[in-house]
């Protein structure tokens, strides 16, 4: 299978062609369109107060949601792999929910829960504003990006097994020392990959955040919402420019991860 050079080349062309058509060309188009009229218009749009605010807010989402989901993800993976129980398949299925449910539905469910008449409506009535403000957007971001660290960490934990941890305990390490000195270093690449995916997801999240934020310019608008608003207002340079910033942020995340990995392999 695949030893035939013709079929090998055929597969390569097919694979690369597919990627080019679906991923590369659209991204290149954005790049091209952004700078069609020079660097001025997109730069102005991004450095406008609303644009800068959207960028800051997006980074704030990342700074809050990613660490929380990382800690939760590692803990949850440890629970699933190291503490076998009958509840585990249920927990496992619940963790996958954000993958299965459309982000819009997630946003709507948060809206129902915290909005007027919802179970947690009392929070808003007592001055703790969740909807149309940052806390609600953080909740939505955490919800949609929750499974990544768990999903990436579970197989690595399974693969390393428990021998190293048991060896550490016979050498006198307590649970905490074993985790920091043995378990975490062994799973760090799985965790790092989960963190990268979580970051990318939080950066780009649109559906759930739109619903809970109300997308108020300069207040509850993240970069993806800013892009959409600019697009709706026919302010295309702003939309393209902000898109490019988003794409660059994602690329930087991936690149940083690759650098770290190369350092590790060396």
């Amino acid at each position, binding site marked *: 299978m695949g030893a035939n050079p013709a079929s090998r080349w055929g597969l390569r062309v097919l694979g690369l062609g597919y990627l080019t058509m679906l991923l590369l060309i659209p991204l290149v188009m954005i790049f091209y369109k952004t700078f069609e009229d020079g660097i001025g218009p997109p730069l102005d749009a991004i450095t406008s107060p609303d644009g800068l605010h959207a960028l800051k807010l997006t980074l704030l989402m990342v700074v809050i949601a990613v660490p929380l989901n990382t800690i939760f993800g590692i803990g949850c993976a440890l629970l699933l792999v190291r503490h076998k129980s009958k509840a585990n398949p249920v927990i496992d299925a619940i963790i996958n929910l954000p993958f299965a449910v459309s982000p819009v539905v997630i946003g709507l469910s948060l809206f129902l829960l915290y909005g007027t008449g919802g179970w947690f409506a009392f929070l808003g009535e007592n001055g703790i504003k969740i909807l149309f403000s940052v806390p609600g957007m953080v909740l939505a971001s955490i919800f949609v990006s929750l499974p990544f660290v768990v999903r990436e960490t579970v197989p690595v934990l399974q693969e390393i097994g428990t021998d190293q941890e*048991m*060896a550490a305990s016979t*050498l*006198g390490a307590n649970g905490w020392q074993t985790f920091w000195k043995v378990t975490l270093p062994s799973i760090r690449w799985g965790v790092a990959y989960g963190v990268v995916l979580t970051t990318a997801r939080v950066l780009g999240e649109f559906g759930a955040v739109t619903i809970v934020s109300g997308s108020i310019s300069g207040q509850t608008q993240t970069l993806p919402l800013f892009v959409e608003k600019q697009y709706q207002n026919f302010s295309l340079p702003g939309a393209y420019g902000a898109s490019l910033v988003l794409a660059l942020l994602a690329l930087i995340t991936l690149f940083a991860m690759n650098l770290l990995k190369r350092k590790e392999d060396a």
Partner: protein
Amino acid sequence: MGISVEGACKRFGDFQALDDVSIDVPDGSLTALLGPSGSGKSTLLRAIAGLEDLDSGQVTINGEDATGKPAQKRGVGFVFQHYAAFKHMTVYDNVAFGLKIRKWKKQETSRRVHELLQLVQLDGLAGRFPSQLSGGQRQRMALARALAVEPQVLLLDEPFGALDAKVRKDLRSWLRRLHDEMHVTTIFVTHDQEEAMDVAGQLVVMNEGRVEQSGSAADLYDQPANEFVMSFVGEVNRLGDHFVRPHDMTVSLDRDAGDEEAMVQRIVALGFEIRIEFVLGDGTEVWAQLTRSELQKLELREGQIVYLRPSQTKSFSGDSPPDGRGASTPHDPQGDDDAGVPAAA
């Protein structure tokens, strides 16, 4: 002193891994836990280390009750079949792990680690990672790591199981020499009876979660407590109710009273040792172990009718004893003395 286990029971679901097991391991001895897979030997070892909780029973290490203690407080060194090397640490850091946990000073740690690496002949490789070592080297590193914290007892779980035959033999004799130098009470688990007899001074034979018999290699071979021990520690033929070792079969061309008539089915030359397979009148297949010169004297060929006489047989009343302590006494038609079979504590 040493290690003692009293009435250990452990169940995994429907599987009784340990069924009222008691053993005594004398201080400073090198003891093998020998048995087929599923016999409970590894579970017993892990229970001694604190890596497995017992359902009931007591573990005493050097006179101190260790039953409820977590592994990290038992002062045991444990060596795993698949090394359990810390893959992200260098050889040096692996060996230094226990010392760093104990907050040793840098200089003392370094001195001790290099001392141990010298002992296990890895002193040039301190900066390597486990992935850059061979299996034998990894296991020696694991041993150095376990010894670094000066454990009261050393426990090895099939330590050579993942290594190839040649390395295995080298490490075996090396472990025995190491034990002669250090005198730390050592238990190692193996399913290989030859390995157990080669390395250990005392053997504990386990089967189906129970101790069948314990004693020296010679005790087990010459005075097996039951059929299981007899067939596990060496080759055996069954003749009716009697068990005969293949080297205790006398082959002759003339019939004597009580001889079994047999036909030579196959002659296998294994170097010095010759293995001859026979089939008896009732269809039973047995084999005898002869030397080259014995074979030459007899001039046997395949298909020939000969007469077999066991020079020594054993028979056992019933199967393995219910209390699992190997108390049944072999009775020997040839009049071997029934010197007490050492029972497990």
